[in-house]
């Protein structure tokens, strides 16, 4: 059913204009998709973690615990939102909002399938990077405002390590953008119709995935909310819906990281016989499975080790890779 067959569609188009309507509908779809997707991802993570650890994972609510996350969400909504006494009230209230808005906005430029993309921007990749680096701002706000020593240490760690993994992330993506010389996500996907970029850029892919795991504060790099050291890092003092927002943001960032990986290296919605959307979703969920699998296998790095690893290994290799790509492009 095409959108143009709606009864009053022409008057609305005339009144609002075609682009605005498309944007409004796209944003509505995203606002519905993000919570559902995070709820599903939470359930997937708990199930995969369970089976890795020889236990079944949530089984109580619904068949195989499908509704577990829904019940958790209702529980979190009904819990009281406590603000610590000497907390910086405004920043404490603002931090969860600042962390969820960029996570949602990044969905605007992700090409789910040839036709399903909310808005085609020529600065697609840049938009995602600029918004995803806002999360560190909100982590610092949350950690500082909650007047808790563990939270402060967590927040300071987040800021200290932020630069360390943003640069290799950008450098590895640059080597892709040199090949397609465009920031448009759809053009990058289009350029990979025959051969996926992972074939050309395996090193950039590895560095990209290591630094996105660090950017979403997961697995070997989850120093910011290290359970066994800092109780639970910057969101120690958050309860109720605010904690749910932090939780939502973490899984949405994971989805964005996986979808960027899919678009940059695994050819977005390109695939032999399934329609575009199916291929995109399969690739994203395979990448998310890898991120979850890595989380439940490795111990945690100390934050100075992370910085050494980033500065002394990832950045030089990413730069080298960039130069080699530039030279090869010039030569071929």
């Amino acid at each position, binding site marked *: 059913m095409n959108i143009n067959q709606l009864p009053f569609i022409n008057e609305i188009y005339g009144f609002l204009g075609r682009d605005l309507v498309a944007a409004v509908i796209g944003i509505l779809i995203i606002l519905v998709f993000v919570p559902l997707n995070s709820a599903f991802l939470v359930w997937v993570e708990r199930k995969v*973690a369970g089976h*890795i*650890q*020889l*236990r079944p994972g949530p089984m109580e609510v619904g068949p195989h615990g499908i509704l577990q996350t829904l019940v958790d969400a209702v529980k979190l909504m009904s819990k009281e939102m406590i603000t610590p006494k000497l907390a910086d009230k405004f920043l404490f209230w603002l931090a969860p909002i600042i962390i969820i808005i960029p996570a949602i906005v990044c969905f605007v430029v992700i090409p789910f399938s040839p036709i399903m993309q909310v808005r085609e921007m020529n600065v697609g990749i840049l938009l995602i990077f600029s918004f995803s680096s806002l999360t560190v701002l909100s982590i610092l706000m949350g950690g500082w405002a909650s007047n808790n*020593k*563990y939270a402060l*240490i967590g927040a300071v*760690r987040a800021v200290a390590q932020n630069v360390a993994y943003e640069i290799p992330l950008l450098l590895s993506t640059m080597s892709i953008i040199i090949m397609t010389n465009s920031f448009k996500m759809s053009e990058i996907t289009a350029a990979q119709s025959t051969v996926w970029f992972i074939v050309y850029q395996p090193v950039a892919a590895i560095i990209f995935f290591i630094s996105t795991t660090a950017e979403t504060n997961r697995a*070997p790099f*989850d*120093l910011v909310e*290290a*359970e*066994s*050291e*800092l*109780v639970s890092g910057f969101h120690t003092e958050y309860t109720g819906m605010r904690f749910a927002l932090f939780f939502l943001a973490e899984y949405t960032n994971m989805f964005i990281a996986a979808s960027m990986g899919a678009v940059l290296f695994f050819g977005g919605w390109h695939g032999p016989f399934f329609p575009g959307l199916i291929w995109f979703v399969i690739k994203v969920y395979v990448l998310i499975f890898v991120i979850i699998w890595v989380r*439940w*296998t*490795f*111990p*945690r*790095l*100390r*934050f*100075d*080790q992370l910085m050494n690893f980033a500065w002394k290994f990832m950045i030089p290799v990413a730069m080298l890779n960039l130069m080699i790509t530039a030279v090869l492009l010039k030569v071929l």
Partner: protein
Amino acid sequence: MLNIKTIDDTSINERVYQLNLGPQHPSTHGVLHLLLKLDGEVVISADPIVGYSHRGHEKMAENRIWEQFLPNTSRIDYLSGLIYNQGYCMAVEKMCGIEVPERAEYIRVITSELNRISSHLLGIMAFVMDIGAFTPFLYGWDDREHVLDILERVTGSRLTYCYNRFGGVRNDIDQEFCDGTRRFIDRLRGRFKDYHNLITENIIFIKRTRGVGIIPEETALEFGVTGPSLRGSGVAYDVRKNEPYSVYPGFKFEIPVRKEGDVMARYQVRMAEMEQSMKIIEQALDGLPQGPIRARVPRFIDPPAGDCYFAFESARGAVGYYIVSDGTRIPYRIKVRTPSFSNLFVLTRILPGNFIADTIATLGSIDVVVPEIDR
């Protein structure tokens, strides 16, 4: 190793950041309060505050007859309950001169070594979880479940055993127990390969543990550190070898020793110690004699006046019962020398200069059981 000199408090008073690694914290293995003075992330001074789970075992000992103190012994260090039971019974038997039949000694050694394996499994995996890897903890828990099932079959309980009696043990072991133990040992040997692949050779684990929290041999001597923490620093002191008791002289087993004294060395000593315990169990099962499991002992015993000190090796170190008896049915004084008490105090000397993450790793590698400190 970080060459940050330990900064004394006075010079940077305003920058000292006091953090309570509070009584309630995910990685203090019990109710332990570590008061850290930090400069940024670096520890300047650490002061463990203990006593949160003090139940007064030694005062209870002065109000109970000798038999009634048995349930207390397995609650002092709940992870090696059987070893403490065996120690207490042997200390009192030594004072009264009770002769324990051969089979009872073998059963005591087998159950103690099984208990040591289950304690090491939990100690190692809790330490690995402090470093950040959650999954090995569940694998260790699964193996430990098998040991607890085997011990439950013969002793009747899973954690706070009250299985030894003066003069022997309470129930006899049957053939099913022996086969179950052998099956368990073969299974655990197979699992070690997975643990080494998953943890020991893991580059992140090596980076987090190599050269961290080093206990030099001299400091270990001054603080009275015993057990795997000492054997990690190069001293081959194991009460079962240096001061043999029960039927341990009859078994061939080595004491694993590492020279480096860092967190990785203590971890490797514990892993090797589990293999030695398995070797002991196999030799004990092969040579298990037939015969009675309990000597003829009067119902209420009263040891002759005088005092006695009996040391034995628990999973955490050298434990000692110092018993003073005045000839009546109630003990005059029972002092339990527990290894975690001295092992924890060493932290105040070796922690300054480390990061917080290393403090947690060192605390986990010393494998402290807090009720054992608080008694």
